[in-house]
Structures are given as structure tokens and as C-alpha cells.
């Protein structure tokens, strides 16, 4: 079994790019990654790629070149990018190939995500009477969490304030203006306790990562990180997921908790070893709950962590250093790979104005979404 390294990364800026299709953004990210690494498309032996709503990834070969490579499309909801990376990881680890890419992209129109009850196996009344909204789910999950663990609205605002501050330092971010906590709290209430500025928006963007075996990586001599763990997990009994007309009385862990445990075990490290973390922040509350679900703090400690700025760049555990989904938007197929892209930049010392000080060694990334799927990756400075 080979060690697995990420030896290059490319991104298409997140946000809105009228006139450029999602697939073109994907090819843009692949070209950017290859150009930076000094590699060419024919060097790529295999690819895993996907989008949630912007087309079939493998058709980008007609743009990039008909080299006959093995190209596998991935469609796994919010974990599409994470699953593409898992494919690349296991392919290199098995020794089947020694250089390949994972690419994720998407292009969602404004206010995307119009769920149909039948597509989710739900009766029509659930949608007709106004219960089928993702925003309600996020609000009710954090509402209960806040009541149980003493988290307050200013802490929700502090998460978003940090995201926009980090986004202002990030070339690929969509929202690049700082927003202060008061404005976040006073913005339109969407679904109590979450205001408009506490939610991310569906957007556009693409990311490509280049994976190589240890032998190939050493030959290339590029800035690189070792992929210590990649785990994707679906929901266990008793988890609380979107579009649930009912929940079991016996509550259970989340898919994030089991993916996180699996990744730590695979990597042989624990939460205290992590230098920088990218956590799913669909809205402010998600980042708060995911800090605990991924083992970084106990339930309720987030209140103090945020007040002390521990998750800011320069804090004890910087979280979402590129502004996360809140500042970058959420093109579903690209979002999980963006997190790994950011950790690659941070660990190779290429993060510019948002660089985490002190040569971070271990980067943690966590993507989560419908219908209850979570992907965690841990990378190490090589």
C-alpha cells in the first residue's frame, strides 16, 4: 500500500461567473492545478469528478483532451467532492495508479434547491403545508442545541463575523467585505435564531486536487501534503437530518461523529493534534455544533471559544480560514474539495494574507449535507 500525497491544487473562484458553465469552471480548476505543478493533462492517469447540478464531470475530457484516461463520475449529494477524493485516495493507496485528480464543480442558480416531496419519499402534505425547508431544519437543530448548552445569538454572529473577515483575505472567496456582528444580528431573520447573514448561499465554483503516490511525489518534488485519512460516512440510527417528518425518541450520534472518529483512527491522531480545521458551515450554528461533533471541544465550550477568538486565524485552532461556506458560498460538488484546497494552501505555506502562523502541521476538513452524509479528511505537512 502506498502513501498518498496531494501535490497540486487548483481553484476556480467561487461566487457567480456569468457566461461560464459549471463544467468549464471544473476544467479551469484542473488546468490551474496542472499548470502550477508543471504537469500536463496526459500525465493524469485517472480522475474522479462530480457535480450535484452542473453536468457530468467526465465530459470535460472533450475540453481537456481525449487521452483515454480512466474517468469516474461521482454523484453523492453534498459529499460529492469528498467522495471523489476518497476515490482518488484509495486508488493511489491500492497501487493501481500513481497520479490522478479529483475534481468537483457546481453552478446553482440564485435560491436553488427546490425539493419535491416525492423525490425524498415524502407525502405531498409535507411540502404543501410549508414544512419542507432546509432552513427550518438548520434553525431547529441549533435552537435545541443552544437551549441545551447555553449558546447565545452573539456567538452565532461571531461565527459569521469571522467568516466574512477571513473571506476578505481570500482570493477565491465570494463575500470579500467584512461584516460586523451587530449588522449580522440585525439582518433579516430567516428562521429563528438564524438571520440572513448567518446562512451561506448556493453558488458556483470548482476545485481540482492532484494526488500522487509517495514515489511519484518525491520524484516531482512539489509542495505537498500527505493525506493521512479520508472517510465518508452515512447516517446512523437516531441522527437528526433534513426533511424528517418525525425523529426517533432515542437520539443517536450524527454521521459527522462517526466519520470523524473513523478519520482520527485512520490517521492515528486526535483533535488536540490538529493545527487548522475547515468545518461545514452551512450556517453559523452548523460550525458551532460541528466543533463539538468533530471532537475539538465539549458541547457548550463554543461560547467561550468564540468570545476568546480561539477559532480565528492566529487563535489556538483556526476554523474556516478561507471564510468557509458563509464567505465562499456552497457549490455542492466543489465545497468539500475547497476545504482540502484550503488546508493544502495552509500546510504548504501558500495561504498569503490568511496564512495560519507557526507552520501548521495537521489540517482537518469536514463536509456534511443531505441526506445525512459526512466526509472527513486529515492532511499532514510533508
Amino acid at each position, binding site marked *: 500500500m502506498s502513501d498518498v500525497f496531494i501535490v497540486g491544487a487548483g481553484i476556480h473562484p467561487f461566487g457567480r461567473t456569468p457566461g461560464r458553465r459549471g463544467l468549464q469552471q471544473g476544467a479551469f480548476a484542473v488546468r490551474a492545478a496542472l499548470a502550477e505543478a508543471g504537469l500536463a493533462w496526459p500525465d493524469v492517469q485517472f480522475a474522479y469528478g462530480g457535480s450535484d447540478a452542473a453536468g457530468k464531470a467526465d465530459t470535460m475530457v472533450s475540453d481537456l483532451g481525449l487521452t483515454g484516461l480512466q474517468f469516474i463520475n461521482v454523484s453523492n449529494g453534498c459529499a460529492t467532492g469528498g467522495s471523489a477524493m476518497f476515490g482518488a485516495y484509495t486508488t493511489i493507496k491500492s497501487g493501481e495508479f500513481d497520479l490522478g485528480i479529483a475534481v468537483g464543480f457546481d453552478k446553482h442558480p440564485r*435560491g436553488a434547491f*427546490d*425539493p*419535491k*416531496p416525492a423525490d425524498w419519499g*415524502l*407525502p*405531498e*402534505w*409535507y*411540502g*404543501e*403545508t*410549508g*414544512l*419542507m*425547508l432546509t432552513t*427550518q431544519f438548520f*434553525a*431547529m*437543530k441549533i*435552537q*435545541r442545541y443552544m*437551549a441545551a448548552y447555553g449558546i447565545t445569538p452573539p456567538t452565532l454572529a461571531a461565527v459569521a463575523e469571522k467568516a466574512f473577515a477571513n473571506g476578505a483575505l481570500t482570493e477565491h472567496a465570494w463575500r470579500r467585505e467584512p461584516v460586523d456582528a451587530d449588522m449580522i444580528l440585525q439582518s*433579516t*431573520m*430567516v*428562521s*429563528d*435564531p438564524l438571520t440572513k447573514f448567518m446562512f451561506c448561499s448556493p453558488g458556483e465554483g470548482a476545485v481540482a486536487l492532484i494526488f500522487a503516490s509517495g514515489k511519484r511525489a518525491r520524484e516531482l518534488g512539489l509542495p505537498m501534503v500527505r493525506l493521512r485519512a479520508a472517510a465518508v460516512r452515512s447516517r446512523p440510527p437516531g441522527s437528526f437530518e433534513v426533511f*424528517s*417528518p*418525525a*425523529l*426517533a*425518541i432515542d437520539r443517536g450520534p450524527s454521521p459527522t461523529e462517526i466519520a470523524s472518529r473513523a478519520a482520527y483512527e485512520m490517521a492515528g491522531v486526535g483533535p488536540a493534534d490538529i493545527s487548522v480545521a475547515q468545518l461545514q458551515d452551512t450556517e453559523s450554528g452548523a460550525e458551532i455544533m460541528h466543533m463539538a461533533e468533530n471532537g475539538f471541544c465539549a458541547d457548550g465550550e463554543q461560547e467561550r471559544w468564540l468570545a476568546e477568538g480561539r477559532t480565528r486565524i492566529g487563535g489556538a485552532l483556526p476554523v474556516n480560514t478561507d471564510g468557509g461556506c458563509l464567505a465562499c458560498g456552497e457549490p455542492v460538488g466543489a465545497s468539500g474539495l475547497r476545504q482540502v484546497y484550503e488546508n493544502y494552501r495552509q500546510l504548504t505555506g501558500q495561504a498569503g494574507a490568511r496564512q495560519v502562523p507557526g507552520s501548521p502541521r495537521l489540517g482537518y476538513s469536514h463536509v456534511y449535507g443531505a441526506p445525512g452524509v459526512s466526509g472527513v479528511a486529515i492532511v499532514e505537512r510533508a
Partner: protein
Amino acid sequence: MLDAPQKDAPLIDDRLLVRDREGDVALLAGRDRMTGAIAFPLPDDEDRFETVTLPREGRLWSWTVQRFRPKSPPYAGPEAFEPYAVGYVALGEALIVEGRLTGAPIDRIAIDMPMTLVAQAFTRMDGEVRTTFAFAPTGIAA
């Protein structure tokens, strides 16, 4: 939108609710004949699930307010929009069920408050009225 109950309006879904002669409703669920686990909404599998009604009393597990008009489809309410509260209510030891909340001012809603299932009229955008369910603070007639 939800109006004062019109006890004669047709049920929104015959597999969701039953109504007695007084106009009171109960939620239908399925009990797994093998495991005893309760499933809601009632699954369409009579071999596996026995039809049962859920307890009508419970405690509020979580809540929020829908502040903007949901998109149609799937939302079938009228264009005119009033924010409404939604929540999950833990019904006895059976299940935690999601529904609209009624009968409590938003600033009085609190987790753990006792709630009771009530019939609610739902006016569709075509003007047709259907009976659905909501949860009201126990002791408040909806």
C-alpha cells in the same frame, strides 16, 4: 395559511389523520410488527406495519419560525403570507413529530412546554380548505 378550524373540511391526506365525531384529530403511524418501532408518516406497507394513532400530548423538542413565504411548489398556501412557527414535539414515548405550532405568541414559545395536537384548517392557493394538524400549548383551545 392556517385559519380557525373548519371541522368539516376534508382531511389533507387520509393516511395522515383520522377525525372523530367531535372533530378532534389524531395522527396515524405504523408500528413495525417485528420490532415494535413506530414510523411516521404511516408507511404504505400493511404486511409490515400495523396502523396505530400517536399520543396527542407531548413536549416541545425544538422550534423555529418560517419568516418568508416558501417556494411553490411544493408550498401550496396562498400568495399572502404570515410568518408561522414550526416545531418538533416529543409525543409521549412514541416519536418526535414535526408540525406547525399554533396558539402561542412567538416570544412565548419555549422548549419543553407541554403541547397538544389540534386540527387546523389549511387554505390552499386555489381557495380550497383542507384539515391538517398543528400543535398548540396544552390548555389553549386552538
